[in-house]
């Protein structure tokens, strides 16, 4: 029990967030939105980590979260930079069209 809310609710919430994110990644074609969905999945995991960290009264979970946030921020920076470069060159960020690596 964390502040009167059962751990199950945290689990449920993060699962829902994760699935929303996953479906977003799978279904959408706009790269920006895919990016946001990835962030959503990361945050779902973050939430879970924090929740368990509090539950077990162990700080290492929160340390992980900081790591993830830092890495995510770096990733977003690099990712957005790549996207903007792609957009400049190809004039689109639709992932169905961006399949040149196939060959």
């Amino acid at each position: 029990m964390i502040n009167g809310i059962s751990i199950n609710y945290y689990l449920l919430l993060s699962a829902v967030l994760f699935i929303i994110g996953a479906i977003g990644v799978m279904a959408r074609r706009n790269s920006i939105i895919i990016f946001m969905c990835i962030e959503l999945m990361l945050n779902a995991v973050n939430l879970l980590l924090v929740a368990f960290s509090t539950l077990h009264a162990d700080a290492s979970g929160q340390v992980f979260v900081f790591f993830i946030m830092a890495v995510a921020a770096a990733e977003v920076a690099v990712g957005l930079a790549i996207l903007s470069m792609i957009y400049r060159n190809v004039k689109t960020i639709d992932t169905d069209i961006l399949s040149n690596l196939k060959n």
Partner: protein
Amino acid sequence: MIKLIGLVPLFPLIGFLINGFFGKKISKGLSGIIASVSILASFILSVLIFMELNHSENKSHIVNLFSWINSDTLIIPFELLVDPLSSLFLLIITGIGFLIHIYSIGYMSHDEGFARFFTYLNLFVFFMLLLVLGNNYLIMFVGWEGVGLCSYLLIGFWFKNTAYNNAARKAFVMNRIGDLGFLLGIILVFVTFGSISYNEVFAKAGTVPTHVITCIALLLFVGAMGKSAQLPLYTWLPDAMAGPTPVSALIHAATMVTAGIYMIVRSNVFYSISEVASETVAIVGVITALFAATIGLFQNDIKKILAYSTVSQLGLMFLGLGVGAYSSSVFHVTTHAFFKALLFLGAGSVIHAMGGEQDIRKMGGLSSKIKITFITMLIGTIAISGIPPFSGFFSKDEILAHAYEHSPVLWFFGQVASMLTAFYMFRLLFLTFYGKFRGTHDQEHHLHESPPSMTFPLIVLAIFSVLGGLLGLPEFWHMPNWMANNLETVILRKDPSTMPHETEWMLMGIAVLAAIATIYFAYIVYMQKKTLPLKEGDKMPGFQKLVYNKFYVDEFYNAVITKPLDVLSVAFHKFFDIQIIDGIVNGVGSAVKGIGSGIRLLQQGNIGFYVISMVIGIVFIMLLTFLI
């Protein structure tokens, strides 16, 4: 002096090295002298050693040179053995070797490969000496293969001629077939006795089951068949006549081809124990003697006739070995070395006079033109035909007497073979030296007696061919048989002859009468009726055609071994190797490649697809983990 035995093979080796390295730089005369002197030095030393051995109580001296191959229990020192047998062969090899070296100086004088010839010849003598001097089977094998190599080099001496090269190659390969048997025999000796030194092996021979001894003896005999040109491995010897004539005399008549006899005499302990092996030797010997003598009847090449005669005589020696007459065979080796070397050298002299012609159909009437050659060859022919008191008579008679004691059938066929010998040898003599000259005008003009360096060896050999019989007079004449007594320590003697003297006299009488009758028959055919051999392309009666073509043995081998081997080789390569084995290997490669390109299609670049398959994968794994 015996301690210096190592020098005997060393002299020819030095001669070989000098001629081999500097032959091109020194003059022909010098290189001939170096080669001959090196053999002469060996000969003198051999004589000294031989005499010392005769006077010494101890009849077997072993001289260790260095240790050669060691492998745990297999210890093979490089040791030389001096005993009556090896010292006798030393004399034959170096003595006749020296004469033939002298002869070659004259015979080869116009050849551009003069120094090369003597290089090979010296190397041959070196290996031949090793062969007879070795104190264990492997040293014998060293010499054995070494003389094979020299034979190869000398048969193919005129290397621009493809036919000669083929003959050389054939000789080497056929010898190697025998050598494999010999090698396996040596290994079996080692496995059985734990040693391959003669004295150790022979001392233990009685303690081993007979069938093992039989195996050893037969394997060794396979080696002897190759080297001494016995059925079925004889076909290389007639072809080997492609080499220069002195080579035919030295290697393919007097020394190398008798190595098989030497080996069996050396191993006589085995053959005395194993009935099966000695019977085999006798039967192979007598069949070869008869077979080769038959072929000799219709040959027209002077050297080929002598070659078949050699095969036939070797067969006779093997007959002797097979019936346990070891010392008689050695005796025949000795006398044969004299008269066959003489005949070959004489033939060489004839060929020399004829300007390279070897076909007796184109000769005739040479007796007055080349007198010395004629007389010496006449002596040789009489000797080989077995007319007393020439040397061939005594040695051949001894073998045949022993054969009769063993089995009259063997004696009968041996007797027929020697009658055939007398016939074709006199045919050769009559056609070559009597009648009218049948060659071209140029040849007739060119006819001349050979230089003294060639006639001198002929004369010496002729003397020996006459007197050689003294070495082994028949025992029932109550004369000392020096040969048998001398070899007593080497040979495990069977019981002395129990034949009544009347029988021996009878056999001797039959032999002489048969020989004379045959010669008379040859005289009628070739002198009175002046029959000439058929020309090339003439129609021959069936049997004569068969014999003239040597029973088609070469063609048979060609069709049964050579051709199939070539076909097999191509089939293995083109079909089995490339199609099947490599096909499987490449098939595996292509399969992997095919699967890869199949799976590649999934890689279509659509991120959405990747993510979905990832999620499906994760879900699948989770389901697996939870359900199982």
